[in-house]
């Protein structure tokens, strides 16, 4: 480990099987706070499964996943999010028929407006909250360079902008730990130039990022730490230079 701080996210001995297939098997790694950790490995290594396990979309057969000192396994996805871990999806899953602004608003905190009783009994407070939420949402859109698109439907955005939107909406939640599932997939070189700096800026804002990535160059450039997953197990973890230069790992990764 490069840092001596206690990890913010700690995965220990996690296993999950589907029928006879062990998607994740005795997986253990740490995520250090305020750093970018890259989760890499060949296809089918279990990376998205790990995300699903952390965020409560899948149950584990064994092991523990702790956020600081809270156990995450067994919690439903919305609880995991409330505790501070939020994720994007490989297939984005934007609310396509809603506007860009609305997509981000759904990340903002609006407990009064979302509670039916307070909505009616505390109408002025609800209105004030909505105003504040809109301001915050616009700030987030500004940060991501999407302000001009605020009133457009999410489905009408270009793909790189949709990728930015999926990051924007989780950023709006103020959750400290962001899980990005292939944030650069399907992007050309120019678009990469928009996305990659944003990921760095997230960390500058104090966020912790765990990202799944296939592009080895990007991993070296972006990550502070790398975790190499293969057949559901962590084969190596350390600084990118160490991992990317290891011939044995490269062989596994490229299937040579």
């Amino acid at each position: 480990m490069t840092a001596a701080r206690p990890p913010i996210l700690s995965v220990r001995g996690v296993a999950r099987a589907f029928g006879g297939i062990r998607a994740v098997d005795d997986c253990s790694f740490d995520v250090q706070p305020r750093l970018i950790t890259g989760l890499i490995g060949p296809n089918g290594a279990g990376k998205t499964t790990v995300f699903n396990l952390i965020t409560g979309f899948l149950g584990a057969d064994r092991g523990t996943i702790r956020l600081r000192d809270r156990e995450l396994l067994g919690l439903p996805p919305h609880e995991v999010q409330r505790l501070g871990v939020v994720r994007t999806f490989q297939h984005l899953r934007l609310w396509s028929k809603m506007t860009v602004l609305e997509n981000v608003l759904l990340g903002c905190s609006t407990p009064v407006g979302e509670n039916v009783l307070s909505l009616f009994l505390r109408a002025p407070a609800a209105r004030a909250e909505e105003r504040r939420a809109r301001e915050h949402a616009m700030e987030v859109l500004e940060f991501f360079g999407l302000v001009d698109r605020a009133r457009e439907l999410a489905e009408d955005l270009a793909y790189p902008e949709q990728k930015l939107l999926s990051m924007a909406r989780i950023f709006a939640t103020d959750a400290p730990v962001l899980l990005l599932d292939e944030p650069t997939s399907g992007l050309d070189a120019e678009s990469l130039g928009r996305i990659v700096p944003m990921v760095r800026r997230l960390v500058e804002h104090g966020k912790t990022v765990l990202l799944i990535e296939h592009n080895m160059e990007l991993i070296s450039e972006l990550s502070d730490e790398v975790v190499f997953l293969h057949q559901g197990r962590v084969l190596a973890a350390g600084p990118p230079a160490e991992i990317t230069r290891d011939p044995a790992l490269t062989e596994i990764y490229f299937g040579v």
Partner: protein
Amino acid sequence: MSAYLAHFLVMVGIYAILALSLNLLIGYSGIFSLAHAAIYGIGAYASALAALKLGLGFWGGMMVAASVGAFASALVAIPSLRVAGDYYVVASFGLQVVVLAVFMNWTDLTNGHAGLPGIPRPNLFGRVIDQPFEYVFLAAAFAVLTWAICRRLIQSAFGRVLQAIRDDEIAAQAMGKNVVLVKIVVACISSALGAMAGSLYAHYITYINPSSFSLHESIFIATLVILGGSERLAGPVVGAFVLLAIPELLKFLAIPDTVAAPMRQIIYGALLIVFMLVRPEGILGRARAAERSGR
């Protein structure tokens, strides 16, 4: 105003409330319920019994109706919505069947098939609402109230969450929304409003019996919502108007009574199929995003 027209308008008002409330489930949450007639019936019976057996006034009866309706819905929603929407369809069917069985068989309470006669007319602030056109105002007032409540819900953060759930439920969960709880809340609100319509009905017709609250009725109310257009709030109201006009029009065609009832059902069934194939968004469909932000 002729008594005939007044009656028609009162029923449009009551059905508008039923359609608007069911639309919260079907149109805005994507959950299909086959039990709305049962909820309507629960409201009618609860309110009628509150008046007949407990001597409660109009408002008291309506509150009892809304509470019992919401409770019945919660009983079914809580176990089934935890699992999946299809389970709710089956559970709602079950609720419809059981509630009707209660109306027909718990004769000590409900008088069974014979029904409950002699339900008092509403007494509002010392004035008994007796005239047909007075009732039109009352029904219209409640329809507007229901519409206002639905509108406030839809245009709030809560409504935004509802739409997100309908668009992509998994993304909603990942963003911290307790999807199951939201659906249960919507089901309860929908039922409270539907039961309120039942209360209005009971005190208007002054006699209720189980046959008004059957599965056929549930399907009819769903048809109103679907045809009128579930994406705009005005849709269910239009649906109520159009579908209540159809039987009246049929009367002019001098169709024998035995054939009239199934004939109406055939028209509703055919309309549903045609609309789903040709225009699933209904008569007034469109512009959900536009409506939501009040544009």
